[in-house]
């Protein structure tokens, strides 16, 4: 141990932890760029979480709270921190771990072992709920029925509801789930790419009715997601706070009051939150049970259980607000990323390499196709596209090789004013 201490001095230099000024630092916090030691990191990390819990009045004394536990690092950290804070600050919560077993042979074995270890370590009772308990089908059985194609639809839809349904079984007041900043930032970007503002506003809010970031699955190495993740990690390298800034952008996007959002009602069959007559899980289950597993997969036009309902929603929605609003958000993100990369010293040190700029182009294209899908008012969309093209032309004029231009360009200012123009267009 002493040998390591001595050797680390060479690694960490003579510097000491920014907070306690006593121990050697072991990490640089991306959020603050402070170099801090292990002990101080735990302390500030736990204290910040406590402040968020208190500041947002997340819990009331005496509540039963289920911790969504997957056995991964995020939920393990959550289980530790919450049980520790509950003890330290007397929240008076009745905590337990809730795990979902999809019934995929070999997939959960390791993680369920981890969850069982958490149960012992933190002294929290554990409840494992299986797809079989909740839906009458395991994932293996579903795969046997429908094959490997499309099974992600089932797993994803079932999983999203599984925690809520499991929680209902346990009669808890609240469920908490742990996510890391990278995942949230990724989800923000993905929801923007898909043009899904309803989900965008939900994915960053601290409490929700349903829906967290989409969980990953062994069957699906989602191309979109991997690409967004790499983009985010690249941005982080240019500027460590980028990830938190993206989340902040997600939080800041407020839905225009003129825009009609898809209404959230409840499923007529099971009472779960749903924007349709039947929730997606019920539609899928109906198909499975009737031996028509393809039901509910892909785009259904008319017919089906939810056919009529869809028409109503469409008729009720406003014509233009949507597209415009999405464009506005998109431009904001573009501008923010660009400003971030171009601003002063960061620009001079590390400029966007051509790969990152290609990525920005790709994302812009992805957005354009997303807008196409939402084409409801020709005029609005054409406007958007012209403006976006414009933004993109401006952006591509930006020098990307640092050898070419010594000074930070004045471009971001022009981009910022474009956002204003779009805001005005939207009002007009």
């Amino acid at each position, binding site marked *: 141990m002493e040998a390591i201490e001595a050797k680390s001095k060479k690694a960490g230099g003579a510097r000491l932890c920014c907070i306690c000024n006593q121990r050697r630092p072991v990490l640089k916090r991306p959020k603050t760029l402070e170099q801090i030691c292990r002990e101080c990191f735990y302390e500030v990390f736990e204290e910040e979480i406590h402040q968020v819990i208190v500041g947002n009045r997340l819990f009331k004394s005496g509540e039963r709270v289920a911790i969504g536990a997957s056995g991964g690092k995020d939920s393990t950290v959550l289980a530790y921190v919450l049980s520790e804070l509950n003890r330290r600050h007397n929240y008076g919560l009745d905590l337990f771990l809730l795990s979902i077993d999809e019934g995929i042979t070999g997939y959960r074995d390791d993680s369920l072992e981890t969850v069982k270890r958490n149960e012992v370590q933190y002294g929290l009772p554990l409840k494992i709920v299986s797809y079989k308990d909740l839906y009458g089908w395991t994932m293996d059985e579903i795969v046997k029925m429908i094959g490997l194609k499309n099974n992600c639809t089932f797993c994803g839809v079932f999983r999203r509801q599984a925690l809520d349904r499991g929680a209902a079984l346990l009669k808890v007041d609240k469920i908490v789930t742990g996510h890391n900043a*990278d995942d949230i930032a990724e989800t923000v970007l993905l929801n923007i790419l898909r043009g899904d503002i309803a989900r965008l506003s939900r994915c960053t809010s601290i409490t929700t009715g349903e829906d967290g970031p989409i969980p990953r699955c062994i069957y699906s190495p989602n191309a979109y997601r991997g690409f967004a993740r790499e983009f985010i990690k690249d941005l982080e390298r240019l500027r460590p706070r980028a990830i938190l800034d993206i989340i902040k952008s997600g939080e800041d996007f407020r839905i225009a009051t003129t825009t009609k959002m898809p209404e959230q009602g409840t499923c007529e069959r099971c009472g779960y939150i749903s924007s349709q007559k039947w929730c997606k899980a019920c539609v899928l289950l109906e198909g499975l049970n009737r031996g028509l597993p393809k039901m509910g997969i892909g785009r259904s036009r008319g017919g089906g259980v939810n056919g009529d309902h869809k028409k109503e929603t469409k008729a009720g929605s406003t014509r233009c607000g949507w597209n415009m609003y999405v464009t506005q958000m998109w431009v904001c993100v573009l501008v923010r990323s660009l400003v971030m990369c171009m601003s002063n010293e960061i620009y001079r040190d590390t400029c966007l390499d051509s790969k990152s700029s290609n990525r920005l182009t790709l994302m812009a294209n992805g957005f354009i196709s997303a807008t196409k899908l939402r084409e409801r008012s020709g005029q609005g969309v054409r406007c958007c596209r012209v403006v976006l093209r414009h933004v993109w032309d401006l952006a591509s004029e930006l020098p990307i090789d640092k050898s070419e231009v010594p000074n930070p360009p004045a471009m971001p200012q022009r981009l910022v004013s474009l956002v204003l123009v779009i805001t005005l267009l939207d009002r007009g």
Partner: protein
Amino acid sequence: MQLTLEFGGGLELLCESVKIHKVNVDLPDGVDNLNMKHLLSWVRTNLIKERPEMFMKGDTVRPGVLVLVNDCDWELSGQLDTAIEEKDVIVFISTLHGG
């Protein structure tokens, strides 16, 4: 030079699912002091058996891979320039898969 290399967070899958490797690394020709840059290229040639792009990008690790030299984030010790000494412990953890 005797070193302990540890792979975690899924990276072990790239080196035949072995997490801890006790290895003996020779100094490359014309190099007096080993640094992380040399070590990474050694790891890539000698330990990574598949999909090296999951581990490295360019001459450094892929963004999202944490590197600890003797329990200390390599950002504090100069990243690729970090000098490596006898009996050092270097840990690579991927944060890219799963929560």
